[in-house]
């Protein structure tokens, strides 16, 4: 077999070109792979932010209330109790009251309760938030809808005032409070607090700053809370209850 110098150089050049092409292809494929993974995370994040919309608002409400001098005195965010699990065991002992276990833990928490107290005048604010739309498809079509009950409470100065509110509370039980805009009254006999509360339906997305789920428009949030609390205070005082 005979090779001259030209053949050898040609062979080397071909090998270099081949390696170069294969490196280029490999880099291109790797870049494509990275882009596919990035895209997957982006999609994953859409679901993540959709699940967290209510918690973001709750965090913002806590932040805003504490800035105004309130103290968080009660918080409850729990998964709905799995009714199917609340069965009676073979020994007859009911398992009701046991913490939820198993696949239920994968269900996102969509109901929250907050209670604040002002150390200055002992007035209280309560918030109860429950998401109406939870799935991504629902929220894309209808918005991030949530039913929010806001309550304002003050200490009653005597027993007869608490009794008055209890009468109002009795009437409130006959009202269909699933509809928004109905003012109801509530009295806590032990601590002597009387509350006026109302349910409203909000689109959480309305409180997003620059259309970002993670950013909250605090000015708007504070203004809306102030408007509701102002009216509830009037209802409570206007009835000469406080």
């Amino acid at each position, binding site marked *: 077999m005979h090779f001259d110098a030209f053949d050898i150089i040609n062979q080397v050049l071909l090998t270099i070109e081949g390696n170069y092409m294969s490196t280029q292809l490999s880099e291109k494929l790797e870049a494509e792979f990275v882009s596919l993974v990035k895209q997957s995370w982006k999609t994953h994040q859409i679901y993540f932010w959709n699940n967290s919309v209510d918690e973001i608002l709750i965090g913002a409400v806590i932040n805003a209330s504490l800035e105004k001098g309130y103290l968080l005195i009660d918080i409850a*965010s729990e998964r709905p109790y799995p009714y199917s699990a609340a069965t009676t065991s073979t020994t007859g002992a009911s398992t009701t009251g046991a913490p939820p276990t198993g696949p239920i833990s994968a269900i996102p928490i969509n109901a929250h309760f907050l209670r604040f107290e002002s150390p200055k005048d002992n007035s209280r604010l309560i918030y109860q938030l429950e998401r109406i739309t939870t799935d991504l498809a629902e929220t894309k079509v209808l918005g991030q809808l949530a039913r929010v009950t806001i309550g304002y409470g003050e200490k009653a100065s005597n027993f007869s005032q608490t009794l008055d509110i209890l009468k109002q509370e009795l009437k409130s039980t006959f009202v269909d409070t699933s509809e928004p805009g109905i003012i109801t009254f509530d009295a806590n006999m032990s601590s002597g607090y009387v509350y006026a509360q109302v349910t409203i339906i909000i689109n959480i997305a309305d409180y997003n700053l620059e259309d970002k789920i993670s950013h*909250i428009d605090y000015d708007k949030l504070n203004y809306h809370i102030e408007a509701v609390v102002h009216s509830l205070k009037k209802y409570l005082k206007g009835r000469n209850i406080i």
Partner: protein
Amino acid sequence: MGFFQLVQEFAHKREMRESKDEILFGELIRLMVRNYGPLVELETSSYSDHKQARFRLLNHPLLHSVTIKVNRWTGTGAVSEALFGSIGSVTIVGEVKNYVADPDDVLNMWKTDFSNIGKIPLLGGIKVNHQMNSILATKARKITIGDFVNSQQEERQKLQEEIKSDINELCEQLKKFKKA
């Protein structure tokens, strides 16, 4: 003071004693939301005095999220508070997220798990839990909740600085696990 006011005061005191851990938890949520990022997960249980909140860090160069857990050990009842005070713990978990994981990470997980033996977060040790896409570092501190709640601004300022320094410590531990 009439009987009604007396009962009211007693009930109010009881409520505020029971709420001390919630007051602390609220302050921690405010600290995190103001300085780090939005609250994205929240879990409080009526079955126990355990509360936890996860925050997504939006512009942090290393951490993907931070979880804060508050556990109350004593002080829910009047007797327990009189005997031991309101004592609990604050646990901070920092998370680094790598967007691609491969089987080599499983070997690293085992290495990390072995190096964790003997590390107790409450005694100042930082425990690292290596999962596939996430690496979590945990630090805990004991806290006298009563002192925090009864104090004015100084104790709150001190706690904020401690939490910030804990998060920085977690960052130092997690730096080596972040892939480019």
